[in-house]
């Protein structure tokens, strides 16, 4: 058995990238007390709109911009449902996921009628030829900029304090003159934009094409990772790396003859089991944000 460790790390970083972007997006929205189950649909939307705009314009940058805008719109929509109307967060999120995926697939069908379109130009890999460093710039930005900046903002800025206050106790935030509505809108719009980038990473950087079911449950994994991380940035990144590392490992083991006797499905299950195991070993009672799942409305 020969596992190429460097290649494993490289694959891990790539696989973890959409989880980091979308996971941090989810983390931000959950910090404001909103469980955003529209993540799967928002990632899908970002992947599709990003692809569409890039295909039409010929530039992945335009695609990325369009994906961000689509994410902001999806976040605003989610905010309208759960903040303005105060609807149940579970149903709103799941409903929005269903809706966004249906809209994307419907549009894809109308525009491409069963074709398998590809982009002329996608984001290239930096440092091609190396095992670990051959990554897309979105990977670098995700790990080296997005994660630390989010961590810093949540920890050391007024914005982070506001988010914390709204997520823990919106009554307290309101009394302190912080607009619960505005904070949650912003959190959802920013968070959803990050989710859309996570989705667009798949089409604009990894694949250069779009197919149905492109997100394949990565959004749900992010939900689990955020709770796993107890709403903290670095543990969420760590969770993404554990998940991705196990995924990369199983990909290598799957083609290693020594592991022929192990059913492939067991290896495919490794990432999920690893996160559960990590939680079982390291985790204890989770305290949810105080205003989690709750809608706020003044009398």
């Amino acid at each position: 058995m020969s596992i190429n460790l460097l290649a494993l790390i490289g694959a891990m970083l790539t696989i973890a990238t959409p989880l980091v972007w979308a996971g941090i997006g989810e983390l931000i929205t959950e910090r404001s007390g909103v469980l955003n189950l529209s993540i799967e649909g928002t990632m899908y939307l970002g992947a599709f709109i990003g692809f569409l705009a890039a295909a039409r314009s010929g530039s992945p940058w335009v695609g990325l911009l369009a994906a961000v805008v689509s994410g902001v719109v999806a976040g605003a929509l989610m905010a309208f449902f759960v903040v303005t109307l105060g609807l149940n967060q579970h149903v709103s999120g799941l409903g929005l996921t269903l809706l966004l995926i249906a809209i994307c697939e419907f549009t894809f069908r109308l525009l491409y009628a069963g074709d398998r379109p590809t982009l002329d130009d996608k984001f290239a890999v930096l440092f091609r030829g190396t095992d670990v460093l051959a990554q897309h710039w979105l990977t670098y930005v995700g790990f080296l900029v997005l994660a630390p900046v989010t961590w810093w903002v949540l920890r050391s800025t007024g914005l982070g304090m506001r988010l914390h206050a709204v997520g823990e106790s919106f009554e307290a935030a309101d009394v302190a003159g912080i607009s619960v509505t505005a904070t949650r809108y912003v959190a959802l719009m920013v968070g959803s934009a990050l989710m859309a980038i996570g989705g667009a990473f798949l089409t604009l950087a990894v694949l250069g094409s779009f197919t149905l079911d492109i997100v394949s449950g990565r959004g749900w994994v992010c939900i689990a990772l955020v709770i796993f991380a107890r709403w903290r940035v670095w543990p969420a990144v760590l969770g993404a790396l554990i998940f991705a590392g196990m995924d990369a490992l199983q990909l290598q083991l799957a083609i290693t003859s020594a592991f022929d006797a192990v059913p492939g499905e067991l290896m495919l299950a490794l990432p999920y089991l690893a996160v559960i195991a990590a939680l079982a070993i390291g985790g204890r009672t989770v305290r949810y944000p105080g205003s989690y799942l709750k809608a706020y409305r003044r009398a």
Partner: protein
Amino acid sequence: GGSTGEEADGSEDLPLIYGVYATPLEEPWDGAIHAALQSAADDGEIRYKHVDDLSTSDAMERGLRDIASNEEPDAIIGDAFAAEEAVRKVAAEFPDIPFAFGSGEDPVEPNMSVFDNWLQDPAYLAGMLAGGLTESDTIGIVGAMPIPEVNRIVNAFVLGVKETNPQATVKVSFINSFFDPAAAKQAAQAHVSAGADVLFAERDGVIAAAEEADIPVVGMMVDQEEEAPDHVVTSLIWHMRPTVDAVIEQATGEPQAVDLGEFSFMKVGGSELAEINTDIATSTADGVPEDLVTKVEEKQAAIMDGSFTTPVDESAPASSIDVSKK
């Protein structure tokens, strides 16, 4: 395009063929059936309607019964893989309508015909190409899941590799999904890091990996050369049209219960190997050696004239195959 289902446009006398698909049309397998039916409709031979994404057997059964009783189809074509029993049940209820379904089981009198994609011939030829192109003697295949349709393609490909390169090793991985190109790409990259320098893209996503690794790759279902002109060396193509033509014959004549599988064979034009892209420019291969092309062409001729029959092996392939032991 849709309609209210009522209008007449002078094509009333053409037979109505209904396509009924378990997966969305975007899935290449059902996409190939759809493309063939669409081309027959474009040729003015049939009227064509379709419904897709009937993913559960109860949706399939409901759809079929609805179509058979209300839409007056002259034949129904679709895939029955996840709903064999439902399809056979409805077929039995409407013996006057020909049913032709992609299926792993046998035809049923009087009206249930079956077909399948039999791509072992182009797969064998593609394997020969891959065997000739590899320098590391390692080839990677990424497939959906180890089902017979896929297995026989993979196994034929492996035999083809053996013919041109008996020292080679073929590694096979499955992503357990018809979609998820990102996972397919990651699997392909795992092959590359394990030394593969030629890939076979049974699923979408692999070509992107080949392009990044700058190595040759074989496409699937349709000619995928345009996706990466420097890297896609050829593609396995399934032509459903001969099968469709056979069903049209039943639609205008009498329903039958036959195995239409032969219509997917290369001999009758049911499948082919896309024109070999001799202009590939990769880190390992710049163009395709002429003698290799000749070898493949000779083999193709042998298949066409019946002097060579690609063996069909539907057993699940191992993850790493030493072709000399095959």
